[in-house]
């Protein structure tokens, strides 16, 4: 297979409310290739989790996919329903959530949870499934997997639990993993372990990973490419080195400036004035223009689009020559 594992085209998610239709995800497009980690970064409410949930059909009604296409391994999946989607979920797409405690069933031994998933997707006997579960636990670095398979979730620490969740997402060998804030609830040292694990799995198995996070540092370390979201739209898309090193969208630039950095010492942090607009109160034109230091009259009336492939959705991308700034 040469094409991308996941391909999203013009994906739009809508939530009908009494006061009109909200679009938490508004026409985003990107691809994730084999063995690639795409970081999705943005502030709360930017729509990054919604986009992930839309791919695996976990939107909670009344939110629904209102337009666009989602392709996984060359198959269009956004219109699949019921059983067809259930077969795909877990088999082709694995999911890792933020809170490892709530994504495991506290009443079942982790071995039972793993074999249940394996048996649902692969034609194996119970004994073979158990072997496979042990192998999966081994792979994510849980010591003594043969014994720990009979433990309950509460017997694990937070980091170990997140490893179990990753094993669960991996056990049917999916080609895509969606990791929604997988390290946000963890300490830095454990976070480093989990990131290293995700990177190793991605490299060894060629699994594509959609890594959703608000932490620019995690993105810089783990991702190959990054998509910056703002108010439901992609603001900027490209290789991590380009986007974080030399941001073209003023929002990305502002985000980087407000992150405290060792090299900047105690200098005052850059502030983006204002806050992200509410979804029911989006400004005309570019959603970022009320906060943008470079906004011109065209930004207030027209919506900039992201050129096909990499780039920034901005009429006046950085770096600026003197006359524009």
């Amino acid at each position, binding site marked *: 297979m040469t094409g991308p594992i996941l391909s999203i085209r013009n994906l739009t998610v809508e939530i009908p409310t009494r006061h009109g239709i909200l679009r938490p995800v508004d026409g985003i497009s990107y691809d994730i290739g084999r063995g690639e980690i795409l970081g999705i970064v943005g*502030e*709360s409410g930017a729509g990054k989790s919604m986009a992930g949930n839309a791919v695996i059909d976990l939107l909670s009604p009344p939110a629904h996919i209102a337009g666009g296409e989602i392709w996984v391994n060359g198959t269009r999946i956004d219109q699949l329903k019921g059983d067809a989607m259930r077969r795909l979920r877990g088999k082709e797409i694995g999911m890792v959530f933020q809170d490892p405690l709530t994504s495991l069933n506290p009443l079942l031994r982790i071995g039972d949870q793993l074999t249940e998933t394996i048996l649902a997707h692969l034609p194996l006997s119970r004994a073979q499934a158990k072997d496979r579960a042990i192998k999966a636990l081994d792979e994510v670095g849980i010591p003594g997997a043969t014994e720990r398979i009979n433990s309950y979730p509460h017997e694990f*620490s937070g*980091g*170990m639990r997140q490893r179990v969740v990753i094993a669960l997402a991996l056990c049917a060998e999916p080609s895509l993993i969606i990791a929604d804030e997988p390290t946000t609830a963890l*300490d*830095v*040292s*454990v*976070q*480093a*372990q989990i*990131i*290293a*694990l995700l*990177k190793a799995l991605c490299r060894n198995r060629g699994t594509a990973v959609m890594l959703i996070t*608000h*932490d*620019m*540092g*995690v993105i*810089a*370390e*783990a991702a*190959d490419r990054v998509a910056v979201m703002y108010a439901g739209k992609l603001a900027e898309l490209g290789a*991590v*080195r380009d986007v*974080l*090193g030399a941001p073209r969208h003023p929002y990305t630039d*502002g*985000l*980087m*400036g*407000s*992150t*405290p*950095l*060792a*090299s*900047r*010492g*105690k200098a*005052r*942090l*850059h*502030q*983006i004035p204002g*806050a992200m607009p509410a979804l029911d109160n989006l400004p005309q034109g570019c959603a970022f223009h009320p906060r943008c230091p470079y906004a011109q009259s065209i930004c207030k009336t027209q919506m900039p689009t992201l050129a096909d492939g990499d780039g920034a959705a901005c009429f006046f991308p950085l770096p600026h020559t003197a006359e524009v700034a």
Partner: protein
Amino acid sequence: MPLVSVKNLTRIFDVSKPWLNRVIERRKKAFLTAVNDVSFEIEERSVYALVGESGSGKSTIGKMLVGLLQPSSGSVEIRGVDLARETDAAKIDGVRADIQMIFQDPFASLNPRWRVRDIIVEPVASRGKDTTGMAEKLLEQVGLSVRDAGKFPHEFSGGQRQRICIARALASEPKLIVCDEPTSALDVSVQAQVLNLMSDLRDEFGLTYLFISHDLTVVQHMADKVGVLYLGMLVEEAAPDELFDDPKHPYTQMLLDAAPKLGDYGRDVPPPVGEIPDPINPPTGCPYHPRCPLVQDVCRRDRPVLRKLRGARVACHMAE
């Protein structure tokens, strides 16, 4: 004289099961030492940061400083007054007014049924003082508008709520503000706004902060002195430049290596080994020895004492 002086502070929690279970299951009482013999001082008008992972005891120290928890042993003296032992009510009252606290979750620390005006002036009103116009003035100082005084907390975003918490903390004109993870629940751009505001207010009012955080970059940005905690013990203390350029304790080195760095794209470093041990049955000797690359016999046997080493204080047998 330092504003705050913490001496041999220890806090032990009883985490035993109920007595009937203990009798039936033949279990002993269990104790968790959350803070273990910690001593440090905070100079007036400086920012002292405590960093550590979950379970390191940083919040427990913050709570003992403001008097929300009583120490099991050791003492906290603020301007020479030990709140837990002082018997002169007037003295206690004077010191109490000088301490305020900002909590992590701005959604849980504001009463949803109170108007912002009442929330902000409460620390002053409860002492029976006049508060006319006070809330409005404070709101402007923290970057909100005068009209916000009549609103309820649910009408504000997370960052704005944290500003309200800061306004409330400023109302009684305190000397010391204990900030327990004040920006952990906020997005980076909002975090920048709140951190800048805190720096401005510190200059304007001559405040002293005890800044509790798990985020090393934030600590480096804010602090004048940093204390690193591990399993309830202070393992290293230094000025941020010293600490970040030349970490002396192996735990500090591990923390710095593990923190994600913006500049290092696709950085591949061996991740740290092991996890924080069970605080109910902590390791003997140095608490870090099971994970330490420099471990020797002496580390398993004796707990290292905090000693001076170049510009820092470090509790490690091997550091040099």
